[in-house]
């Protein structure tokens, strides 16, 4: 698969005077393949949300190159029309859905994106219906968004992005404000966007168990890529994660703690089943 996102050595500072010593991003090079499911981790202020905002041109880098598909969005002759094309391809879902809902009726809100793209009316209708169905909110089409729960609002925000038919959706801590059921629902939608609709998913999160569902994990720390790899590769390096204020999922942390207590458990155990298996096997005496 070709890369849908490529960044080469990008830097970004929020303000001139602070910026010189304290860039939010300080030379980040990452690439994401079309159809990939990537989690981005990093402590508050690490630069991960800044990276997301650069990828759909809410922010523009100070230096470096960003390519979205075949577009080099940092090129000097990149036009405003090109920008709209990029935003159509890379959608973003924010932490607080209230910041993202604009209309007073759910289906009008979902139609807002495609309307602005100048899509014909009949096609908008189809897209809105399909998007609402994909997030399981068809029956709420005529409801008022502000009367929905947080999880339901977040689904509407996602439907609004899906109706623009993007190739990539970036979730910027989109589950942070949700209750456990709401969070499970949004994660199921992320999985289905990726697996069934072949949409590239970037999930920026503080929840390590969410990252464990991704194909690849990128850890950003102090404006640079600190490590990346499969969840198993990244979470096996528990000490390095702790060093930057992060942690592994609870099951992996349990194995690591028991290893430190001297038990012969395998390093780099990631995932619920793998961890339970390792512990059950050691108990039964078949550890080796």
């Amino acid at each position, binding site marked *: 698969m070709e890369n849908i996102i490529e960044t080469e050595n990008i830097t970004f500072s929020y303000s001139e005077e602070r910026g010189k010593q304290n860039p939010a991003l300080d030379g980040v090079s990452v690439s994401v393949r079309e159809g990939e499911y990537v989690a981005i981790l990093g402590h*508050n202020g690490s630069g991960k949300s800044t990276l997301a905002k650069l990828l759909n041109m809410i922010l523009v880098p100070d230096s470096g190159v960003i390519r979205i598909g075949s577009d080099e969005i940092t090129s000097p002759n990149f036009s405003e029309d090109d920008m709209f094309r990029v935003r159509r391809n890379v959608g973003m879902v924010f932490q607080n859905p209230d910041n993202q809902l604009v209309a007073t009726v759910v289906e009008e809100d979902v139609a807002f994106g495609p309307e602005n793209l100048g899509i014909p009316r009949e096609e908008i209708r189809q897209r809105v219906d399909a998007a609402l169905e994909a997030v399981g909110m068809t029956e709420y089409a005529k409801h008022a968004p502000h009367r929905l729960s947080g999880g339901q609002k977040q689904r509407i925000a996602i439907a609004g992005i899906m109706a623009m038919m993007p190739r990539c959706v970036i979730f910027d801590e989109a589950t942070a404000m949700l209750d*456990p059921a709401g969070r499970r629902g949004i994660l199921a939608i992320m999985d289905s966007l990726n697996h069934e609709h072949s949409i590239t998913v970037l999930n920026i999160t503080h929840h390590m168990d969410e990252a464990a569902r991704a194909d690849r994990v990128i850890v950003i720390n102090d404006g640079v890529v600190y490590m990346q790899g499969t969840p198993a590769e990244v979470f096996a390096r528990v000490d390095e994660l702790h060093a930057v204020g992060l942690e592994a999922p609870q099951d992996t*942390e349990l194995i690591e703690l028991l290893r430190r207590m*001297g038990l012969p458990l395998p390093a780099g155990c990631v995932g619920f089943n793998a961890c339970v298996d390792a512990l059950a096997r050691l108990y039964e005496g078949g550890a080796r």
Partner: protein
Amino acid sequence: MSILELREVSYVYGEGTPFEKIALDRVSVSFERGVITGLIGHTGSGKSTLVQLLNGLLRPRSGTVLLDGVDIWEKPKEIGKIRHRVGLVMQYPEYQLFDETVRADIGFAPRNMGLSTDEVEARVREAADFVGLGEELLDQSPFALSGGQKRRAAIAGIMAMRPDVLVLDEPAAGLDPLGRREILGGLRKYQRTSGTTVILVSHSMEDMAEYCDRIVALNHTKVFMEGSVDEVFSHARELSEVGLDIPHIARVALELQKCGVPLSGNLYTIEGVAVAYHRALVEKNGHTASGEEGNDRA
């Protein structure tokens, strides 16, 4: 011994309008003195309504809210005093910072309580210390702080009132794992040192297991479950039926038990499960926990 108690409290939003919605329906619950109680419930279960009833931001439609056995609405004109005794930290409290310096911001409530300058200063220092904000930050603008520091400054502003009960609505929302530990660990230390009763609202079952003594679970306008952390999290199925959950690590423990590993004790935190697993191994394999030596001897 309870410090705050709701007796048959109901609250209705938009009463008499087409949008009438019952938020709490004859809820009776009491909060124990000197412990941390976690308040959980799905979105719309009535948590935020309950929290606002506790310090008199909302007035029950029926029923009573008792603080130390006295109805907080006995003298409605003095409800402001209740708000000093039951401090409420709302969600994303950093948006409420406003003063020129961190010191002035934290001292805002104590100043309004009519305390002397020295007393205000003492309380500001104490509160800043509880949340881990260094002396050097006190004269900065609150807007120059990082997100996590702003959050802590806002919490300190409520602690500085020295409330009898400190209520916090999702104090760790949106923070990274270290930030969560700093805020919640700090709260626990504050609770243990000051003896203040703490009520903590959170969606994170992991945090509840780690930092709370008791849990009250709401579901659809009613109290669904209450008890110690152990008691509540032993009802995994019931919790997930109402959109809640048990900590991820507790699922690991349940699965291990199904595989025949006899675990007992606190199975809701990583440390608890590790200790229980270690003990189970020791009991099975003799005095060493199935390390290399243990197996060789066997």
